[in-house]
């Protein structure tokens, strides 16, 4: 973590870079610094380093550029902490292709989100626009993102409820399915008849609201009930 105490550049935009790929973070710092109007006051490679910087220099930044995937966790909590500070804006920079992660970042308080496939000039320009008071996201985009997060949460809640309805035996059947076993093999493994296995499977399909063994398997893998190796 680097901290630059620079009271003389009071008119420059002070930036905290939170990014675990050091060579890119340093290149990004270089890009900002060469513009003259920006000062990179801190660089952090993890959430812990970012929080240590914020404790040490609580009023030391105007804009935080935050990667979502950091070695000690995702950046959503940090974005919320930054959003709680007055006059600090967060630009999220992520390699993730999942729209819901960007949406969650906006929900957490990010003022803008950019994918790392963006030209480097766009990142610098985005910070400049944020500082000039320009919105990077339209109200319609923000609403759509918040809706997306809401939908995702509802799906996760429904999935959790469905999983809670499964009996321990039904979970064993699902795990055996995850091992690639067919009806006969599952029955043998669990010392039950094939008919009983099929009854369990029908109940599983009903509880998970899916229509096939394959769909049940996908559901189970997606929600961590089985591990596909």
């Amino acid at each position, binding site marked *: 973590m680097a901290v630059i105490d620079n009271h003389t550049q009071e008119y420059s935009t002070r930036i905290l870079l939170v990014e*675990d*790929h*050091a*060579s*890119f973070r*340093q*290149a*990004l710092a*270089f*890009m900002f610094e*060469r513009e003259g109007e920006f000062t990179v006051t801190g660089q952090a*490679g993890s959430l812990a380093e970012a929080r240590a910087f914020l404790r040490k220099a609580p009023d030391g930044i105007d804009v935080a550029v935050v990667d979502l995937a950091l*070695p000690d966790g995702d950046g959503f909590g940090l974005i919320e902490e930054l959003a709680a500070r007055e006059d600090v804006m967060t630009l999220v*920079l992520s*390699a993730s292709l999942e729209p819901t992660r960007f949406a969650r970042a906006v929900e957490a308080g990010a003022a803008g989100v950019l*994918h*790392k*496939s*963006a*030209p*480097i*000039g766009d*990142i610098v320009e985005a910070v400049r626009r944020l500082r000039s008071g320009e919105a990077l996201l339209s109200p319609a985009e923000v609403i759509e993102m918040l809706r997306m997060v809401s939908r995702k949460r509802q799906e996760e809640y429904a999935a959790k409820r469905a999983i809670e309805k499964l009996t321990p035996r039904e979970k064993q059947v699902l795990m055996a399915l995850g091992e690639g076993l067919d009806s006969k093999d599952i029955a043998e493994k669990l010392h039950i008849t094939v008919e009983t296995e099929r009854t369990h499977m029908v109940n599983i399909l009903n509880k998970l609201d899916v229509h096939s063994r394959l769909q049940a398997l996908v559901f189970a893998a997606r929600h961590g009930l089985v591990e596909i190796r």
Partner: protein
Amino acid sequence: MPKPPDSRSEDPAKARRRRGRPRVLMANEPRAYREGIAAVIGQLRPAVEIEIVEPTALDASIERFRPDMVICSKATETLKGTVRVWVELYPENGTSSVANIGGRRTEYTEIQLPDLLSIVDKAGELAGTN
């Protein structure tokens, strides 16, 4: 702008002219990394000739640009067979990187910008000794 295609066997006079002016091909993902690191190399090593291409154009660009060094996310067989200095930077978006300098392999758990500049310098030295 992409450079015009070179012939396979470089003219000796042309080779002498560009001696000490190493060529670096940037073909890593994502784009922000590629462009940001290229900008730093361009500014801090002004003698270096840099070309930036999409990763999918790596092999064709090696053939055409004949770089002394390549920075990419996934080293191809063409790269390994033709370029003496290359860096596999954050393959699969991980944190480690691998550098090959004249056949010597070095693994970096957290490669820094000065490491990359140092490898560029070594590529220049190797190009100058050819």
